[in-house]
């Protein structure tokens, strides 16, 4: 993208402000909406609340060496004081891709870490890049156990769209034929090292219905669509100058731009979606310029909200009218409720005596994955909880960060030990499903305003008994799996993390079959306002335990296809 994509409109004529489509947000799902709508010929404006981040040019730390960082990537007092929330996730090399907590306050009635990246590309720059499909085990979960509302779609509805987005983003992975973790369109996987192979074989031998596969990751194991390949630096969250992984900046926004249909306007904070009582549709959005604080309106036939789970719900709640006094499309009263994250930072690690004659070379930006094995069927039913968790795991040799703590000595021998690899270690951490629960929610506190005069978000979130029971099992099962595969010095851990720190917020404008109990229909279209589509994490009826971004992308492409067809039929 060039500077021509920054537009600052002075001409006040209505036509200048009118587009075919408006996309709010330029993160992982907004980027997809922009690409799809532009490629289908719609003049599209993407409104991004933060600054421009141009691929490669605006990755200031991407090529820095470890010694070029003042704090050598350690956090400081300033981080803790100024950014108590964001500094739980960022480090010195990528903190410029996270908001400043002082400038962007919110309230935590019950603790929830709201991690944000307000700039073009959003959190698609710093995302974990793990991509796993949901399956009918997930799409039928609410129906079966009664938590939340039934998803209005099933796997077959989304499967071709998973194929479609995987073929564009580039996913490395291994096809396994696991029924509840469907295979995708994969580039060659990133291989397991010797201890991971040992572990995978041991699991196969010792357990039924447990699998170990290579991490499925949106990093390119070969050059793909003018991007990559991955250079195995494992510095992805700084932005990749080689285009080695998928982000809006490296992939979807450039694709949207080449169509000639894209207008990207940074510094555009959406204040509200404007509802037209005469047509029963949304006619556009009103923005506040982040820098000048001027307001401006943009109009379009179709609007995609992709501001991220909590921000999208905020925009809807801010968009009040006589028709929707409680927020646009909120006749169900569900907007803001059923906030979900994944719970993690629980598991086990252990050491292995063997394989001392092996090492590895290059820094693989993923690990291995152990798909869910609880509550798949009657045989795997767990008495204490419903749903399940998967493990992300990683085998590596102990290096200086561990070695420095292994003994209390100092001097020549200590240095010699510090600088050579120690024993092999396996680390396993669970990513678990949080049930949809109306008590986990966000809303607006209208008495408190941010510097743009917008009401502050208040969040209340708590893990329930189901999550707690699942964590206990995830911890003990990890230890058991390590023990049975020959590891020693096994230690379990539960860091009891703040909700939100997995950065997988979902569920505040859920899809459902019934307009009385859900916000969106099976096409991610608002039940109440047919030309508004929502395809970020807020649409999720349940969370599964898989990393969710792939599903947002597939749902976005699917919804764009539907919206454009409806436009052609004059239904919007």
């Amino acid at each position, binding site marked *: 993208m060039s500077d021509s994509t920054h537009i600052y409109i002075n001409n006040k004529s209505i036509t200048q402000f009118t587009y075919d489509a408006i996309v709010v947000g330029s993160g992982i799902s907004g980027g997809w909406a922009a690409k799809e709508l532009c490629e289908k010929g719609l003049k599209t404006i993407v409104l991004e609340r933060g600054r421009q981040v141009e691929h490669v040019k605006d990755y200031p730390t991407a090529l820095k060496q470890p010694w070029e960082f003042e704090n050598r990537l350690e956090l400081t007092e300033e981080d803790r004081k100024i950014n108590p929330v964001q500094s739980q996730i960022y480090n010195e090399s990528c903190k410029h891709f996270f908001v400043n907590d002082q400038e962007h306050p919110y309230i935590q009635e019950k603790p929830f870490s709201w991690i944000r990246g307000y700039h073009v590309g959003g959190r698609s720059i710093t995302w974990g890049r793990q991509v796993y499909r949901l399956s009918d085990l997930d799409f039928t979960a609410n129906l079966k156990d009664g938590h939340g509302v039934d998803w209005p779609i099933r796997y077959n509805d989304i499967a071709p769209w998973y194929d479609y987005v995987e073929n564009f983003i580039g996913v490395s992975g291994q096809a396994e034929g696991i029924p509840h973790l469907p295979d995708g369109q994969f580039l060659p996987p990133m291989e397991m090292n010797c201890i991971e192979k040992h572990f995978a074989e041991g699991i196969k031998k010792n357990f039924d219905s447990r699998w170990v596969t290579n991490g499925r990751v949106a990093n390119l194991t070969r050059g793909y669509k003018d991007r990559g390949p991955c250079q195995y630096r494992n510095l992805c969250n700084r932005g990749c100058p080689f285009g080695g992984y998928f982000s809006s900046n490296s992939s979807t926004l450039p694709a949207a731009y080449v169509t000639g249909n894209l207008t990207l306007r940074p510094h555009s904070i959406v204040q509200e979606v404007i509802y037209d009582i005469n047509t029963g549709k949304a006619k556009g959005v009103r923005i506040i310029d982040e820098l000048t604080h001027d307001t401006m309106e943009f109009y379009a036939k179709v609007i995609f909200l992709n501001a991220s789970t909590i921000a999208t719900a905020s925009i809807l709640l801010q968009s009040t009218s006589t028709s929707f006094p409680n927020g646009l499309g909120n006749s169900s009263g569900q907007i803001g409720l059923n906030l979900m994250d994944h719970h993690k930072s629980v598991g086990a690690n252990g050491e292995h005596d063997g394989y001392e004659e092996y090492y590895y*070379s290059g820094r693989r930006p993923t690990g291995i994955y152990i798909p869910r094995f609880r509550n798949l069927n009657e045989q795997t039913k767990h008495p204490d909880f419903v749903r399940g968790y998967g493990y992300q795991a990683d085998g590596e040799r102990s290096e200086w960060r561990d070695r420095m703590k292994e003994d209390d000595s100092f001097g020549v021998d200590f240095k010699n030990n*510090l*600088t050579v690899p120690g024993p092999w270690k396996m680390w396993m951490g669970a990513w678990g499903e949080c049930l949809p629960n109306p008590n986990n929610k966000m809303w607006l506190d209208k008495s408190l305003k941010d510097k743009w005069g917008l009401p502050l978000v208040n969040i209340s979130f708590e893990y329930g008994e189901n999550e707690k029971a699942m964590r206990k099992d995830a911890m003990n099962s990890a230890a058991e799996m390590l023990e049975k595969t020959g590891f020693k010095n096994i230690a379990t851990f539960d860091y009891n993390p703040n909700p939100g720190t997995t950065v997988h917020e979902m569920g505040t404008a859920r899809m459902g079959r019934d307009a009385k109990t859900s916000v969106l229909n099976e096409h991610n279209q608002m039940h109440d306002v047919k030309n508004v589509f929502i395809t970020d994490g807020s649409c999720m009826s349940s969370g599964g335990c898989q990393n969710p971004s792939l599903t947002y992308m597939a749902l976005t492409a699917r919804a764009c296809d539907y919206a454009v067809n409806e436009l052609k039929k004059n239904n919007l």
Partner: protein
Amino acid sequence: MPNQKIMNRRKFISSLFILAGGAAATYYGSKYLELTDSPDINFLDQQKELIGDLAETIIPTTDTPGAKEAMVHEYIIHMIKHERDVKIQNNFINGIKDVKEYAFSEYKLPFEKLNKEQKIATVRYFQKEGENFKGNLGKVRNKVLGKSFFLILKEYTCIGYCTSTVGVTKGLAYQAIPSKYLAITNYSPGQKSWATK
């Protein structure tokens, strides 16, 4: 005991630890404040050589460069100044003062002027002094009193060294841009470990 002042500080710390939570904690409460006082940060800038010598004793020059050549003292001072925990700042600054006093009372010389063996003996004294209690007891101790001087010195020396230009490129193995990933390679004893993950 060679030095009354050092002994007193140590005695105070261990009794605080033992009595924490009990009635005597009230008495020691005022002493505890010493640990949470605003630290004398500027003092550190005058101790570069001493801190460099301490770091070099932790990671000495061998066939590869040591902590001093890696300018680890600059990093330690920078990080103590920007440290998250005021107790760590105070423990470190008090530790430096104790090292000075100890060297002088034992050897009648400033630490910087000691020979290699004397420096090792001095650091060993502080290693024992701050011996990290293992298990839960150690965790509680670290939480109440902050990490020991020796542990702070050692950890920042290691981080500073293993992220410095010479540490990364000479002390350890490093590829800025690996370009490829080899999941399984042969390892021969003595081969350096990777500097970055």
